[in-house]
């Protein structure tokens, strides 16, 4: 589904990422973890062509129209209502306003935001805005979902709840996902495979770990699975040695 081959990304003279290779198979949930500032986001930006790698290639089995990108910030248009924000992508895809907004309303309802369609982003809480952003992406029915620490700004309860809802969608729809995060527990509980990025500059893929926990998963229950603890400890040890300032959520 997604193959990143020997990608090097540089913003100045020195590369941020060097020789990055990773693969996410169809229907697989992959996570990319690494120290802050190691260039995790740059990989997603390279996949969506928001930046051009210095060298290497990105191969997708789907068109860019079938790729959904969930940003760290909700990045909703402040001058559009929740419904209009969700409808925007659908209208860009050619649906007329009425149909796009009707579908947007359905997506908002399915994410627990029935009756919130007329509200502007500043009238919504952080969790509600994040749900609108998720609806905006899922409404386009992507086959590949890229997520850049999408829930980092939320409190633990809301974060767990929304992660579980999204995981449910991903499992039901068999979506392929690449999640960038620095939360090791989140990475393990949601993923089939975890890639570890080394400390930048010139960050590389340091290791790859498979998470052998059956689906469907419950993000809280998963943490009690026998595989979870040893894997978490292994990743923690690996990254603690990698980063002089330990900033991983355990």
């Amino acid at each position, binding site marked *: 589904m997604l193959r990143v081959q020997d990608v090097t990304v540089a913003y100045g003279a020195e590369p941020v990422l060097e020789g990055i290779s990773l693969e996410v198979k169809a229907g697989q949930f992959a996570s990319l973890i690494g120290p802050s500032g190691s260039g995790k986001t740059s990989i997603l930006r390279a996949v*969506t062509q*928001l930046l051009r790698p210095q060298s290497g290639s990105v191969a997708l089995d789907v068109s*860019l*129209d079938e*790729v*959904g*990108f969930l*940003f760290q*910030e909700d*990045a*909703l*248009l*402040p*001058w*559009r209502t929740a419904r209009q924000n969700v409808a*925007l*992508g659908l209208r*860009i*895809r050619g649906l007329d306003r009425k149909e796009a907004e009707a579908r947007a309303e359905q997506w908002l309802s399915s994410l627990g935001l029935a009756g919130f369609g007329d509200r*502007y982003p*500043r*009238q*919504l*809480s952080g969790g509600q805005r994040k749900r609108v952003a998720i609806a*905006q992406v899922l409404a*386009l029915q992507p086959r590949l979902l890229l997520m850049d620490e999408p829930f980092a700004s939320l409190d633990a309860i809301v974060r767990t709840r929304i992660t579980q809802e999204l995981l449910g969608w991903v499992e039901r729809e068999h979506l392929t996902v690449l999640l960038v995060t620095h939360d090791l527990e989140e990475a393990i509980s949601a993923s089939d495979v975890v890639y570890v990025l080394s400390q930048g500059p010139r960050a590389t893929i340091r290791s790859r770990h498979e998470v052998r926990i059956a689906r469907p998963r419950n993000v809280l229950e998963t943490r009690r699975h026998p595989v979870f603890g040893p894997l978490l400890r292994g990743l923690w040890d690996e990254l603690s040695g990698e980063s002089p300032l330990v900033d991983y959520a355990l």
Partner: protein
Amino acid sequence: MKTWINSTIFRRSAALLLLLLLWEALSRLAWLDPFYAPPPSRVAQVMFSLFAEGGIWPHLEATFTAAIIGLLAGLVAGVVLGFSAALTPILAELLEPVMIVLNAIPRVILAPLFVIWLGIELASKVALALILVAVLVFFAVHSGIKDVDHRLVERVRTLGGGRRVLIREVYVPSVTAWLMGNLKVAVGFAFTGTVVGEFVASSRGLGYLLQFAQSTYNAALTIALIVLIMVFVLLLFSVSELLERRLLRWRYIQEPAR
């Protein structure tokens, strides 16, 4: 009742009334020379006669016509040039130095030149109001586009939006917010340009009347005209604010309790 007394509007109005009463008393007691500082009652009398005798109307019409045309033309010119420069780098290279120079100088110094080029009638006043407003709006639009939230641009791009969608969904609303923030200043600039233009050379308008009042040392008429211009500009400020609240409804809407 208590809430009403504690309100800011009440306190400000009371302070203004007190100041006017003090001024009136000092003038009547001859502690202030009425030749230089005529009492408010004399200013009010002059203002009343201006309207009662009807002599003010052609001047009001001249000033308002020039200011409104200058304001609208300046808004259009500033928006078009600002958008074009922000989206076309080669045009920005040509326009930016001109606008920076025009912004750096006190633009009212162009008034005599416009009189020479366009005569003492409406056109020279419109031109001065236009140039004052257009430069302000150019920078507001230019900054509005250059400082647009790049996260919104990337969001729309990842949803599949191209240049047209970006302009419609991100740039135009972002620029509207900047523009509305500067609309009140633009209204003030349009009146400044018009009145200064009339002051330099004209046969009608509030600036012309001001020039006449100054040359005849008529302080009561001068103050009456200044008050009149202030009242009209404040009225236009209110209209601008209503427009801003309507167009930027999303910004003023009440946030829910968290």
